[in-house]
């Protein structure tokens, strides 16, 4: 029991009750007044998230520990909550994203289809946030899994909001399958832990058999990797994100994948004593996701699909940090381990802020242009000035540009790399050097990706009618992104001060000083130029190589922009040329007509997912042959089963 329980417990209860109210209220509403109930429900979300923010701030600052048991079931299973600093940090992420998303949602919901579905979406949003809050507050593995399932189920209903479209239904099926697979592995891990210790407590495992512990770790790691979207378990993200409404994508990509990071960290820190090779496993998974994720993102031209792949990259960066943390802990370098862990945690927060900002602003763009295809956009910077400025901040942040927050967290992980290299043993040195090279590659490729995203969506001339007629979105849809953009700037510029406030004095650059320098130099240069150089300015058409006026068709497209990188990394993309030819004669001499297309091979889908799915179907087909709808056969089965049972019982002692 912490000393501040009298303060934190009511706050936590209030937040949970507000979220429950937000879940129930929209379901009660009928008729014309539904609209108000939607706003009320989202208001509940904002209040609950704000209260959670205060709660987590108290716990983070004071180091208090909130622990209480709701009720106990038999056999050691119970519903109990425990909120320490790690939980509080993730509560902070949830609250920091939920407030702006709920504000944005209240404006966005007007453009969504179906009034009763709108009520459901409000209700499920609250339930989803509640589930995530309870997952990070869980005090034992039983409640952890229960809430994990609640989170999976409620998010599924949010993904299939637009169920009348076939693509959404497909995405829903893939999401449902992957999320259940994740739950299955998490459940398996928890059951193995229960077998090893006989309790559901989240506590260290002294004397548990090493084999069981390793098996439990592998199961939990797989489960959390699927949820986080680590390659090769990433396939659900690029399906689910484009299909679901933008605020839901913001919540799922900004927060839900971080809950998986929380799960991994919680079990690594509280339950296991990690071994070195676990660190290598997490490190390799992280780097693989970071590099492949961003390479796939470059190829995307669906704006939300691109952001989904970018999430895979950032989860990779977070996992790299976690992997380094485990490696340095296992090799006895606590300071470096702390830097790496802080880098991973800080990047979780920063990615949550920046990615939800990007999903919300891209939702505004889709709202204005009615397309997700970036080649149909362009020229929006002068039509949607605020949205474009917010998108710019998010993009620059994820491209790790100083002084924004994406840089602040990447610099922590890079510092861990740089300072660790002189002190570890030679083979680890070489490994870290290669890891560093891949990490840097991912980081700069994300800059390419966001130049492409911002350039094709917002700059130059509009490439379609819809884009030409686009106009700025209403104030509520600007307020949410505005909060997130401000948060991105503040957490970036004051990163050093925030870390000192949290009690960590680390050898990272003070971005506040650097930002002042940048601004100061810019102002100085501006003043100098203003007073010394010619001020005459004219507007003239862009030279169009002989065209009388520049045309959108002559512009560089997003595809064209990323083409060099695609060619350089072509072995990774694996394109396939599909040709069909028809001939007039039998001997294929006189050509009639044909088609040819270059198709991007979905490597993981074709070589991993589909074979597994086909094998599953085959097995199911084999089993279904036993079911021939004939009573005699069934009686035979029963008879055989009884014989087998008697024989088994007779022989067993």
């Amino acid at each position, binding site marked *: 029991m912490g000393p501040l329980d009298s303060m934190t417990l009511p706050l936590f209860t209030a937040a949970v009750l507000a979220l429950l109210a937000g879940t129930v209220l929209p379901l009660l509403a009928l008729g014309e007044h539904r609209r108000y109930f939607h706003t009320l429900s989202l208001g509940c979300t904002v209040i609950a998230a704000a209260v959670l923010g205060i709660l987590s701030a108290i716990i983070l600052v004071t180091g208090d520990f909130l622990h209480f048991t709701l009720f106990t079931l038999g056999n050691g299973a119970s519903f109990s909550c425990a909120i320490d600093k790690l939980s509080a940090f993730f509560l902070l992420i949830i609250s920091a994203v939920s407030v702006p998303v709920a504000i944005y949602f209240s404006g966005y919901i007007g453009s969504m289809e179906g009034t009763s579905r709108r009520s459901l979406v409000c209700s499920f949003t609250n339930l989803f946030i509640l589930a995530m809050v309870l997952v990070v507050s869980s005090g034992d593995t039983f409640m952890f899994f229960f809430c994990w399932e609640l989170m999976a189920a409620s998010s599924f209903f949010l993904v299939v909001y637009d169920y009348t479209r076939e693509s959404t239904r497909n995405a829903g099926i893939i999401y449902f399958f992957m999320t259940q697979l994740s739950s299955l592995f998490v459940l398996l891990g928890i059951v193995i832990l229960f077998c090893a210790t006989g309790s559901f407590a989240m506590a260290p495992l002294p004397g548990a058999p090493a084999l069981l512990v390793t098996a439990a770790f592998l199961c939990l790691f797989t489960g959390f990797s699927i949820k986080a979207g680590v390659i090769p378990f990433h396939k659900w993200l690029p399906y689910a994100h484009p299909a679901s409404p933008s605020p839901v994508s913001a919540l799922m990509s900004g927060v839900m994948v971080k809950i998986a990071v929380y799960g991994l960290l919680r079990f690594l820190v509280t339950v296991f004593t990690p071994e070195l090779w676990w660190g290598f496993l997490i490190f390799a998974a992280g780097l693989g996701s970071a590099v492949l994720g961003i390479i796939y993102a470059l190829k995307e031209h669906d704006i939300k699909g691109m952001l989904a792949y970018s999430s895979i990259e950032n989860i990779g960066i977070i996992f790299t940090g976690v992997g380094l943390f485990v490696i340095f802990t296992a090799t006895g370098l606590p300071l470096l381990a702390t830097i790496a862990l802080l880098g991973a945690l800080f990047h979780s927060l920063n990615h949550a802020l920046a990615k939800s900002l990007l999903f919300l602003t891209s939702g505004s763009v889709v709202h204005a242009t009615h397309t997700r295809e970036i080649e149909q956009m362009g020229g929006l910077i002068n039509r949607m000035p605020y949205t474009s400025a917010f998108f710019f901040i998010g993009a620059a942040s994820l491209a790790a540009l100083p002084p924004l927050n994406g840089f602040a967290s990447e610099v922590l992980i890079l510092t861990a790399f740089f300072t660790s290299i002189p002190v570890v043993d030679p083979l680890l040195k070489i490994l870290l050097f290669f890891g560093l090279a891949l990490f840097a590659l991912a980081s700069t490729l994300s800059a390419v990706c966001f130049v492409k995203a911002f350039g094709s969506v917002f700059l130059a001339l509009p490439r379609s009618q819809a884009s030409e007629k686009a106009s700025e979105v209403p104030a509520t849809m600007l307020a949410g992104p505005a909060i997130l953009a401000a948060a991105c700037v503040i957490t970036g510029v004051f990163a050093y001060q925030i870390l000192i406030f949290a009690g960590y004095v680390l050898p990272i650059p003070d971005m506040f000083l650097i930002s002042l320098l940048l601004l100061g130099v810019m102002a100085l240069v*501006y003043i100098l130029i203003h007073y010394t150089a010619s001020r005459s300015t004219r507007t003239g058409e862009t030279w169009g190589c002989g065209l009388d006026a520049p045309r959108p068709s002559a512009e560089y497209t997003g595809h064209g922009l990323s083409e060099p990188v695609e060619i350089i990394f072509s072995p990774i993309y694996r394109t396939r040329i599909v040709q069909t030819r028809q001939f007039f004669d039998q001997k294929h001499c006189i050509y009639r007509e044909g088609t040819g297309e270059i198709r991007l091979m979905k490597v993981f889908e074709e070589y991993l997912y589909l074979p597994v799915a086909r094998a599953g179907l085959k097995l199911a087909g084999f089993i279904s042959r036993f079911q021939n709808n004939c009573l005699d056969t069934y009686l035979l089965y029963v008879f055989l089963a009884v014989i087998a049972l008697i024989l088994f019982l007779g022989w067993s002692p």
Partner: protein
Amino acid sequence: MNIDLILYCVINTLVVLAISPLFVSLVKKVKAWTQGRRGPSLFQTYATIRKLLSKEVIYSPASSWVTRICPYLSMASLIVASLFVPLVFVTGTVGGIGNIILFLYLLALSRFIMALAGLDAGSPFGGMGSSREMSISAIIEPTMIIVFATLAFVYRTLNIPDMVSIAAAQGTMAVPTLILVAISLFILLIVETSRIPVDNPETHLELTMIHEGMVLEQSGRNLALMEYAAAIKLAVLTGLLVNLVVPLGIATTLSVTGLAVAVIALVVKGSALAGVIGLFESSMAKKRFFQLPSLFAMAFFFSTLVIIIEVFS
């Protein structure tokens, strides 16, 4: 913040502003000599910048605040980056000025905004330049970070001024491996400053259009700033290379004679490197764009080899 640091910032900025156009002209001069021409005057780049400042700026109607802010932001990020590399005088720094990681990302900041400005006007050439510049930067980055990590590894610090201090204190090269690192740094310099065989800074043909393609839509004072920023980038990378490998003459305490000697030493070392760059550029042709990855892969393997030698020596 002590007085030494403030003086360091002021002196370093003044030196980089004063000297950077000179290095650009020098390279041009050396290239002209090897081609049997007399070449432009050594002060031509100063004159070009001054002339551009008096010209009017033309904006495309499609362009936005990105084009307007780009020259200032890219100039500011390069001037701040120049603070990270002591050119004539070295002192202890605070608050991460000199952090080698931040140095890399400041260069990335200027590149990011330039690439966006290249797309802003809707011209196909600007887009081509942006696309190529970003691609090249992406594939050279692993080599870049490896080289910088090797520097951090050899000097046991993340701070460039501290590295230069150590190099200056030891007088000669700290580690023989540094000769090999210097070769890698030279390749990076060629790539980062858009020179042959990666890019050709002298032409506006589509074939070579990388950096020049991006700034094609800039004019007047904005173009002057962009050209100046490119010159500063060359000077900063030159300073980094020569001061780490040949730390001769750099001032460690403030005195007028010391600074004078240091400036002369920098001009001499920098001119020598500019000569090498000029000769290097003249001795080969521009490579085809898609042959560059294999060149970069070579640079990467070379850097990795250096590391393996360093780790196991």
